[in-house]
């Protein structure tokens, strides 16, 4: 028995769809076959709440009188893009003022979502059509035309574990790594993680409706650094960071419980983003995919104290136990992403679908099937 998107949506409209979280279905799979799961379950909700540096917001401020072509723009003193027409900008999550590195683009985005005012200051050279050369005023989500969260690379499919073999502390985007293998940090939500439940992106594509920071958002494209070339383990899980998604959504509908500006010591600003993706159980293959368990999801251990060398492999059941063993070292493990909040997102999305407030979307274009990533060659 196979199901179509339309059949599943019809059940959702009637309030009859059976929806489980990815953790619930993984537990169920200990005693049920994929065929039985296909018969019983219509949708599985997946989620993650982690640091996603490649995020940002498209804002349109509206025109002042007289108008200005904003060529240099600051928001709360943080320089943001002046390269988008006269009154548009892109606030990158990692934008910051080097004099004050702990507050950046991600914090501006959070402040706006929290309903706060932000100081906009902009300069232009003055043109015949945009005569003004300077403006300084308060803006907020209420005063702007558009405010669209637009993230180029989120929800990495799997990610490496970071350790540090050197004799000094390393401050990284994987957190503070203590010397001599004193700790190991990992970031994926494991069996709850969206792209690990649909490893080949059979159901996640352009146009897929998702939970994005409290709002209903969309997958807009394959994310940057989309990579299908990583080796698969025997359960079909890509080892290390692989596929990614680009996402967008309306900031006015978001909630900072699911989006936070953050600062990693001596690294810089980043943004925690909450994403939930519904996976339709179309056939036995999808039922088997969503049944994946933490012990089956493996990833590489990288040494951030020694040129990011791959020095071992582990799995998420071991990582969640609080300690992994590597070359005779017992290493204390810690997460970077919030499993508690990811579970909350998976439950909210489950509730939306059960109540018929959220219908599934068939991708308007699938993700690329064969894609590797390039390094930057220096050729001058």
């Amino acid at each position: 028995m196979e199901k179509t998107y339309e059949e599943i949506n019809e059940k959702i409209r009637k309030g009859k769809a059976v929806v489980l979280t990815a953790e619930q279905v993984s537990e169920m799979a200990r005693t049920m076959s994929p065929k039985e799961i296909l018969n019983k379950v219509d949708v599985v909700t997946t989620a993650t709440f982690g640091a996603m540096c490649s995020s940002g917001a498209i804002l349109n401020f509206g025109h002042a009188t007289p108008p200005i072509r904003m060529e240099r723009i600051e928001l709360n003193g943080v320089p943001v893009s002046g390269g988008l027409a006269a009154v548009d900008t892109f606030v990158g999550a990692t934008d910051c003022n080097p004099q004050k590195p702990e507050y950046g683009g991600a914090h501006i985005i959070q402040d706006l979502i929290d309903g706060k005012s932000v100081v906009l200051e902009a300069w232009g050279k003055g043109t015949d059509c945009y005569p003004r050369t300077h403006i300084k005023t308060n803006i907020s989500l209420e005063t702007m035309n558009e405010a669209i969260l637009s993230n180029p690379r989120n929800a990495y499919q799997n990610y490496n574990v970071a350790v540090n073999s050197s004799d000094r502390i390393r401050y990284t985007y994987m957190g503070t790594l203590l010397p001599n293998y004193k700790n190991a940090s990992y970031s994926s939500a494991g069996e709850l993680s969206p792209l690990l439940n649909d490893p080949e992106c059979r159901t996640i594509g352009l146009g897929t409706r998702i939970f994005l920071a409290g709002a209903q958002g969309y997958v807009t494209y394959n994310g940057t650094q989309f990579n299908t070339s990583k080796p698969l383990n025997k359960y079909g899980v890509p080892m290390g960071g692989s596929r990614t998604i680009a996402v967008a959504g309306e900031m006015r509908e978001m909630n900072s419980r699911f989006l936070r500006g953050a600062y990693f010591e001596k690294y810089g600003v980043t943004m925690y983003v909450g994403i939930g993706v519904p996976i339709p159980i179309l056939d036995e293959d999808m039922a088997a995919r969503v049944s994946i368990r933490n012990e089956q999801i493996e990833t590489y251990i990288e040494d951030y104290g020694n040129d990011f060398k791959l020095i071992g492999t582990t799995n998420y059941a071991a990582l969640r136990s609080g300690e992994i063993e590597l070359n005779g070292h017992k290493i204390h493990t810690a997460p970077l992403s919030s499993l508690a909040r990811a579970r909350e997102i998976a439950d909210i999305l489950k509730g939306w679908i059960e109540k018929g407030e959220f219908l599934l979307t068939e991708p308007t274009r699938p993700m690329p099937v064969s894609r590797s990533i390039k390094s930057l060659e220096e050729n001058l």
Partner: protein
Amino acid sequence: MVKRIVLNFPAESTQKPVIYDIVKKFDVVTNILKANVKGDQGGRMVVELEADADKIKEAIRYIKGCGIEVSSLGSKIIWNRDLCTDCGTCTSSCLSGALTIQAPDWKLKFNPDKCVACKLCLKACPLKLFSMDVFG
């Protein structure tokens, strides 16, 4: 029992060998976890005491009698739980095991009795939700 305390030395109380005294007089096992005391200025010290509850009580009364202010270490730590997202990043740096996150609920737990005031969590928390006023 084991108790961690903060000793706040005024300059005039730095000449008394209080740690030696509490070992000799009350048979308290002491472990100095952190100290920043200057003879002419005073300063603070974090000490772990291990003995029967009564002996610890007497030792603390003696220290106070020497003009040294004593406070419990836990009272110096502020964790903004309301804004915490339970990401767990801080637990990576907390080698004393005061900050933990684990199954089944994966919510951050903080046990002030285990904290040694190393302050690594202040830097490790990406949301800057810890503040600690042990050494100012």
